[in-house]
């Protein structure tokens, strides 16, 4: 088992590409937040306290239309429910007797990307590894938001528009390499994209909100994959 210090350093190192990816996405978020009527400080605070991508973007829409707090809570619950599944998965990667304090600490920064590097981390996950990755990635997420909110208006519209795909590029960078290695993951990825496409365009189904759509697709596809392609213990996570 590594020392806490070296785990922390390694987490920080693995967090650097996440931090840089976040800079681009949160920059776009900062621009949009100011356009939705938030101040630079509010936009930055929102990123620092939430650390979610899809949830924050959806939240802006609700704030700018003065939606109810119940709607806000419900939207966040649905859009971010996947973190519950990710946290449940990470609960299996840490020591069974890990302190509550550390469990609460790593929960703060459980994003899609931090989850991805934590889940692919070999062996037992040290909370200090997570702290390193969280520190660096949250720094990028918050700084990018600040810069976007502060300077977004001076950038050309074309450049701002192009940043809209940054988040999706990052997601593909996470799912495609394992899909290339493992046929079961490949089928899962393709099936999820197909089902999500059907739910986006098919009559009736298209009325389901995007947050619910993601939850339904996740539960159905991951559930079917688990039944059809159960994982062997030795294969690791």
């Amino acid at each position, binding site marked *: 088992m590594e020392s806490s210090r070296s785990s922390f350093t390694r987490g920080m190192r693995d967090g650097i590409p996440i931090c840089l990816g976040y800079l681009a996405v949160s920059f776009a978020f900062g621009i949009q937040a100011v356009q939705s009527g938030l101040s630079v400080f509010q936009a930055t605070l929102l990123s620092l306290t939430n650390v979610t991508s899809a949830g924050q973007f959806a939240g802006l829409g609700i704030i700018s239309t003065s939606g109810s707090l119940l709607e806000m809570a419900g939207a966040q619950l649905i859009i971010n429910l996947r973190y519950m599944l990710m946290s449940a998965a990470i609960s299996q990667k840490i020591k069974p007797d890990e302190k509550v304090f550390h469990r609460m600490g790593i929960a703060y920064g459980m994003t899609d990307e931090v989850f991805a590097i934590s889940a692919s981390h070999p062996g037992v996950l040290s909370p200090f590894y997570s702290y390193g990755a969280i520190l660096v990635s949250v720094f990028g997420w918050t700084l990018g938001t600040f810069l976007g909110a502060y300077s977004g208006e001076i950038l050309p519209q074309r450049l701002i528009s192009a940043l809209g795909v940054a988040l999706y590029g990052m997601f593909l960078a*996470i799912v495609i390499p394992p899909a290339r290695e493992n046929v079961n993951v490949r089928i899962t*990825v393709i099936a999820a994209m197909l089902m999500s496409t059907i739910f986006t365009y098919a009559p009736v189904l298209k009325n389901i909100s995007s947050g619910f759509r993601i939850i339904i697709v996740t539960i159905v596809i991951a559930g079917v994959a688990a039944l059809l392609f159960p994982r062997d213990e030795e294969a690791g996570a």
Partner: protein
Amino acid sequence: MRNVYIYILVMALVTYAIRVLPLTLIRKEIRSKTIKSFLYYVPYATLSAMTFPAILTAVENTYAALAGFIVALILAFFRRGLLTVAIGACAAVFIVELIL
């Protein structure tokens, strides 16, 4: 507009609760092979569902978005890092929008 800070607080509380409850409540190793497998496939299913087809409407021009998607797929297939793939996708969108 309602007080923005109250919205931010609600968002932060709900999101943190979602993240912290499983980590603090699940103290034992899950033994069920099916549940373990399910948790393994969750991120792939979620991220894929979030990405497609949403990426096609992420920018105004569908062809530019499609170019971004294809470039990201290719770069990710050759195992480029998060940043390279994200910037490559943005660059493809930017270039196609310039041309069209």
